Each structure stands twice: as structure tokens, then as C-alpha cells.
């Protein structure tokens, strides 16, 4: 299959370890943030989201942290598995507007056996 991104920053993590992917966002007006996972040949898939009135949100094996002061997001994946191999994008938008999503630069997560 084709690659989503050949020149993306890559994070290599040992299987079973925790992964942390970081992202800086740009728009001060954005109050809703989303992490997407994109596997080769597929569209972005929703992982977890967070609104700006929160600092942290947890899902199954994933945690998103938001630091509004420095406009920084992170995605933590616990006990990384081979199926977590993908490109991860952070994204931002305005919460109550049915509007476009602004995607950040992606990070390729590579799982080492």
C-alpha cells in the first residue's frame, strides 16, 4: 500500500512501552482539539478529543494533555502495540461550529518488536 507520509518525523517505540506524541497548535481561537490516526491507504480515524476547558482526558490506552498557555497538545499511548503503527495528526477547530478541521504536522509511530 502507499505511504501516508514519507518524510514525517518518526517516533520509534519498543512494543509494550508507552508512546508520547507532541503537537503545537496555531490558532488561539480554537477550543476543540482532536487526535487522528491514519494508517496507510486509509483516511484519518478519530482517536480522542479534548475541549479547551479541560487539561487532560483519558480513553482506552490513550490520554490527551492540553496546555493552552503554550498551545501544546500531547497524545500518550500506553503499552504500545504493533497495531498502533500509523501516522498521528493533531487537529484543531472551534467547538460549536460545523466547520473545517485544521490539521497539524503528523508524526509516524514505528513499533519495534
Amino acid at each position, binding site marked *: 500500500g502507499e505511504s501516508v507520509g514519507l518524510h514525517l518525523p518518526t517516533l520509534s517505540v519498543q512494543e509494550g512501552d508507552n508512546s508520547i506524541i507532541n503537537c503545537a497548535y496555531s490558532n488561539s481561537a480554537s477550543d476543540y482539539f482532536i487526535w487522528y490516526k491514519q494508517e496507510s491507504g486509509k483516511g484519518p480515524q478519530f482517536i480522542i478529543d479534548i475541549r479547551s476547558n479541560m487539561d487532560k482526558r483519558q480513553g482506552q490506552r490513550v490520554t490527551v494533555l492540553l496546555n493552552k498557555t503554550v498551545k501544546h497538545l500531547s497524545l500518550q499511548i500506553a503499552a504500545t502495540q504493533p497495531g498502533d503503527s500509523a501516522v498521528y495528526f493533531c487537529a484543531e477547530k472551534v467547538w*460549536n461550529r*460545523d*466547520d473545517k*478541521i485544521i490539521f497539524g504536522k*503528523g508524526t509516524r509511530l514505528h513499533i519495534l518488536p
Partner: protein
Amino acid sequence: GAGVSQSPRYKVAKRGQDVALRCDPISGHVSLFWYQQALGQGPEFLTYFQNEAQLDKSGLPSDRFFAERPEGSVSTLKIQRTQQEDSAVYLCASSLGMEPYNEQFFGPGTRLTVL
């Protein structure tokens, strides 16, 4: 299938040809979005429909790009006189369009290669 579908999945065009890319959104979804994803980049917004109305086309890179959704369901993105820089994956997404939460569901994309 219940997801967003796009066709064709792959399209090769000679420079100067016109192409048409189709998106079938999830049934009942009011909003439809087109994004362009260049190799190694995140998706970038092109245009947005609410039912048949095109509410935002600010992301279309030139007047060679045209999108329509005449009956508020299926949408077509047309690119006239394709150029090499048009080579990218074109993603379609749809959402219920009900405020305040409007999760966008993405299709698999159409990979366009212009030779």
C-alpha cells in the same frame, strides 16, 4: 457499508486532463468536506457543503478546482486541466451537522497522480 466511500481509489491523469472524484457520504449526514493531502503532510481543507449549499470554498487552490453536491448527498470534486502539483490524496469527510458536536468521518481518499 456504513462509512464514507470514495471513487476511484486511484486515478492517474496526464497533465492537462480533467478529472472527477466522487464522494458518497454517510447516509443522513448534512455536512460534507473535501481535504487535500500532499505526500508527507496533513490534510488541508478545500471546501465545505451543508446539504447542497457550498458554504466555504476558501481552500480551493485555483479556479481549476470545482466541487458540487447538487442533491445534498453525493459530491463530486472536479479538477480541470490538471497540473503535476495537483498530485495528492483527496479526502472526503461527512458529519451529522448537528451542533455542538460534529465529528467528521473520513473516507479512504482518492490518490491522484498527474504525470
